[in-house]
C-alpha cells in the first residue's frame, strides 16, 4: 500500500474524512452503550483507551443490526399476507420478527441459524436404511 508522495494530499483528505468522523462520533450517541461494547471487546483481547474507537465499533454494530433488521423486515413484508377475510381489514399487520425471517436475513451475512423443521429421535430417522449415516 505505497501510495507514495504523489498522493500525499489525497491521503490527508482521506484521513481528514476519517478523523472528522471520529470527532463527530463524540456527538452521536450510539444505541449500544460504550461500556457494553468495551466489555465485549476486552473479552476478545482488544483494549483501547480511546473512546472514539469504541464508539466506532458501536456504530458499526448498530449499522449491522439495522441492516439485518431491515432485511428481515423486507422478508416479512414480502410474505403474502394471509388475508382471507373480506372484511374491511386495514393493512395494519403487526409485524413480528420471526426466526424464519431472521434466518433468511442472516443467511446473506454468512450466519447460519437454520432451525430444524422437525425434531426427530435421531438424525437418521426416516431415512432409508441404505443411506443411513451417522
Amino acid at each position, binding site marked *: 500500500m505505497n*501510495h507514495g508522495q504523489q498522493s500525499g494530499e*489525497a*491521503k490527508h483528505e*482521506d*484521513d481528514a*474524512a*476519517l478523523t472528522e*468522523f*471520529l470527532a*463527530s*462520533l463524540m456527538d*452521536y*450517541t450510539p*444505541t*449500544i*452503550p460504550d*461500556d*457494553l461494547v468495551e*466489555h*465485549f*471487546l476486552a473479552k*476478545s*483481547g*482488544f*483494549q*483501547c*483507551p480511546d473512546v*472514539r*474507537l469504541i464508539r466506532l*465499533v458501536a*456504530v*458499526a*454494530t*448498530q*449499522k*449491522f*443490526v*439495522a441492516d*439485518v*433488521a*431491515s432485511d428481515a*423486515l*423486507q422478508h416479512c413484508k414480502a410474505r403474502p399476507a394471509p388475508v382471507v377475510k373480506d372484511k374491511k381489514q386495514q393493512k395494519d399487520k403487526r*409485524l*413480528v*420478527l*420471526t*426466526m424464519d*425471517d*431472521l434466518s433468511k436475513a442472516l443467511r446473506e*451475512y*454468512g*450466519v*447460519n*441459524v*437454520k*432451525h*430444524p423443521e422437525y*425434531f426427530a429421535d435421531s*438424525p437418521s430417522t426416516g431415512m432409508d436404511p441404505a443411506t443411513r449415516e451417522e
Partner: protein
Amino acid sequence: MTNGGGEGGSQRRELHGKRSVFRGNDFAYALARMAVAQICESVEMNSYQESQTREGVRFSSFQETALETLTDVVIQYIQNVGKTAQFYANMAGRVEGNALDIVQALEDLGSGLGFDGAHDVEHCLADSGVVKDIIRYTGEAEEMPFVYSLPPFPFNRGKRPAPSFFEIGAEPPDEHIPVWLPAFPETKMSNGSEETNVDKIEGDVGSRENGPSLTSMQQSVDVDRVKILKSMDQKEVQKPTEEPEGNPFLAAPLWAGEKNVARVFFPSELRKEEISINHVPEKSMSKSYHIPALEAYPPSDKINEKNRLAETQDGDERNGTRTQRGLLRFKIETRKASLCWKRNQCLDEKGWFQEDGDRREKKVEREEKPESVDTDVK
C-alpha cells in the same frame, strides 16, 4: 460465521438450552438484548402505497427466540471485530488497537456481503467503503441513545485484593514469607462467635454473576481477619511493626546513582592497589612486596604458612594474593629452594588449574585445619 454448525449443532443447542455465547455474563447479555431490541424497533421501512403516502413500517414485536439469536449474533460480531482488530494490531507490532485496525476488521467482516471498493486491494484504509457506509448511516439514522442509564460497569473491578499480612497486623507464620504478601486464609473452625461480623460485607460486590461465591469468600475473609486480630491481642507479637516495605517488585526503579551500591572491584586494579574485600588481618604489609608468585594459589599459602612459620613475608604475600578473589593467572617464577620445594610439591598435588587445585586444597585444608579462617578464595 456459522452459528452452531448446522442442524445438528442447533439441535444440540436446543436440547441443552445453552447458547454458543457464554451466558455467564447475564448482565451484559441482558443489556445487549435490550440494545438490540431498541435498534430493531427503530428500523423503519418506507413503503409507498397507492396514495403515495409514506408509511413507515416497523416491527411491533419480536419472537423471543429470534431476539435472543440476534443478540448472540451481535455479541459474536463485536467479539469478532475486536479479535480481528487486535490481530491486525499485533501484526503491525503494536499492542493497542488503532482506528485503521478496526477499519480493517470491519472490512474483513464485511467482505462476505461486499462494500464499496472491496475490489481495490490497495486503497487507503481511511477511504474505505466501510467507513463511508457508516458515515452515511449515522447521517441518515436517527440518534437513539440507550434507554436506561447504566451504572458504571462493575465487571470484576470491585474485587479488593486480599489484605496483606501487614494490613491485618498479623505475623507471617514463617520467615520466608514477606509482610506485603496477602495473608493466609484461616480454616474455619468456629463461626459461631463471628456471626455478627459476617454482616459486615464490603459493598463492592459488583459482579453479580460471581455473587454467591464472592460474598461467601469475603465473608470468610472478614471472619478470618477478626480471628487473626483476636489472636493478635492474645499473644504478643515479637516482630516490631516496622514500616511496610511494600512489594519490592512493584517499587519504582531507581535512578542511577540514587542508591549506594558497592563498587565492583576489578582484579587488575587489586594487584596494584591491594584493596581487600574481606579483610585479612596480616595483609597490611603485603603492599611493599612485589608478588611474583602464583597468585592463583591462595590455599597453598596456608599450607606453606603452616609448614614454614618463620617466613612470614611470603605468608603475607600470599595473603595479599588471597584477597584478590581468585585470579586465573599463572605466573610461575623461581623462588628459593625451600620454597620451590614446597611449592612444587603443592603443584604436583594440585595440578596447574586453579579450580581443581582449590578444591583439593580445600579438602586438604579441612582435613588439616577444621577451624581455619574462611578466606575469600572462592
